[in-house]
């Protein structure tokens, strides 16, 4: 299945902004995170299709996964 992965802030360093990826059915968010070489404790916000998601969430074909380090502003 095809998913879109979007990276933000420091996660883009040495990686990419947006990428389409082919992943096997049943892939959960955590697997993608680990494949990218990101550590769980670096993660701030994980969103699937614009909604906050736990790392255990199973991805569906066409999903968009967005990963942010802990950031803030105001």
């Amino acid at each position: 299945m095809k998913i879109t992965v979007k990276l933000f802030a420091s996660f883009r360093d040495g990686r990419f902004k947006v990428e389409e990826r082919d992943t096997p059915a049943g892939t959960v968010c955590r697997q993608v995170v680990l494949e990218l070489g990101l550590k769980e404790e670096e993660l701030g916000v994980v969103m699937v299709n614009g909604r906050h998601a736990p790392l255990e969430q199973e991805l569906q074909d066409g999903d968009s996964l967005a990963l942010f380090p802990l950031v803030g502003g105001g």
Partner: protein
Amino acid sequence: MDKIFRVNMTNLTTRVETVPAAWAGHGGRGLTSTIVAAEVPADCHPLGLNNKLVFAPGLLSGTAAANSGRMSCGAKSPLTGTIKESNAGGTSAQMFARMGIKALIIEGLPADDKWYNLHLTKDGVTINEETALVGKGNFAVIDAVSERLGKKVGVITIGPAGEMKMASANISVKDPDSKIRSHGRGGLGAVMGSKKIKYISMDDAGAPGVTIADPEKFKTAARIFAKALLDHPVSGQGLPTYGTNVLVNVLNEAGGLPTKNFRYGQFAGADKISGETMHDTIVERGGKPKHGCHAGCIIQCSQVYMDKAGNYLTSGFEYETIWGLGADCCIDNLDDIALADHHMDDIGIDSIETAVMMGVAMEGGVLPFGDGKGVIRLIKDEIGKGTPLGRILGGGAAHVGKTFGVTRVPVVKGQGIPAYDPRSVKGIGITYATSTMGADHTAGYTIATNILGVGGSVDPLKKDGQVELSRNLQIATAAVDSTGMCIFVAFPALDIPECLPALIDMINARFGISLSGDDVTNLGKHILKLERAFNIGAGFTNMHDRLPEFFSEPVPPHNAVWDFTGEEIDEFWNF
């Protein structure tokens, strides 16, 4: 000993007073609100004889505590008609504190048509007639005053918008680089303009400085506090690298980035105006990605943004400004927004109110959505010059909505709603609705918990827990706004257990007192209730704690609507 400096513009006299016992425990917002509530009739005209303009540094300003250099300014607001506190960085809070000025109260109105400046030293205030700088922009005022009195003097000034008493006029403060920080919200620049004060200069030569009751205890607590600020990923890394503008992409992804005057929750041009793009642009052009708005800021969310030729364009270039002119007005050119920010600083108008107003003006057909050059022209040549159209625009979003018959006007109590859609980030909607200041994201920043995962998590799209979240944050914020601390200390304070106790320890060590966490919470509650009582006296009821009707329209991508009932919102005040 701390003193109150009082200036009467009606008879042009000044006085130095001792601090009344009832005010002794207050600083910053707690003090400005206490003084305004005690001395300003709630039903007065904000630009009339009976309003007063109050400046107060925070309880910890002037000490070595990290990030403690914020100054509060308060009055009855010409924009909202409510009580108002607006705080800013810059060099003046620390100078006030070192000179022992607990508050400066400016009252009365001059009978003649002359303009004045005030000059503050540790011994008192002088009132001087001002002619040369009337009509000048803020950058020119700061340069000229530094030239007249020396580089080290502090300056608080208004631009042409304040002189013309526009309801979105701000008050500007000289920063460590002789650039500008602003008391932005609520039109306090118009109050200063009504009192015919062009600028306030200050010289802290020979000032006694701040005494600390228990220096050892203070030092230990200050060290723990500073470490927490640096250890937290938001205050230690995210803010100094990308500035507050890192939020563009986060809010866009969450569907909460108000776009085209709050029609959509996502903007196609988001990445072009994002913090990531801004960071790369600044580095490429030789600007500074990190910079503090006052000495002693160790977070440094500010920056220096250069134009293509490598010349200074703006600093303190914030997410809200970039969102407002960017997504909300559909302008995807960061340089246009930066130039607009520069002119807003120079003219002296609030960049949030002006950006929200421009979205409404576009809705009303004054200029097309996406017209960045048009926005710059309106700011410079209409608002800055005070043409009839400029005066209408300078009145703010609500004013422009009425003038052009627009119903999609994002304001609460007459103040423009900032950068987070309340339908898809519901906690912040409660803050907008209930804040004593009119729509104000900083009053109780639920984005931390709704979106960023700081201080726990509350689903932004559901109603559950939002009223309580906003209440807790508004109480805590009212207390933090009294310390002189930058509100960004809230990020570590929400997550790192030692942070808040260290802050309280610093206050205790500074004054030789023993406040507990509960005392601080009670202080926050007291301030909110005091401010609300003022607003009730000014004619506000729970019916003003509501969002505009158009928020019942669904906002894509989540098609969220504002679905709180009035009774649910009113629960906020049950404490």
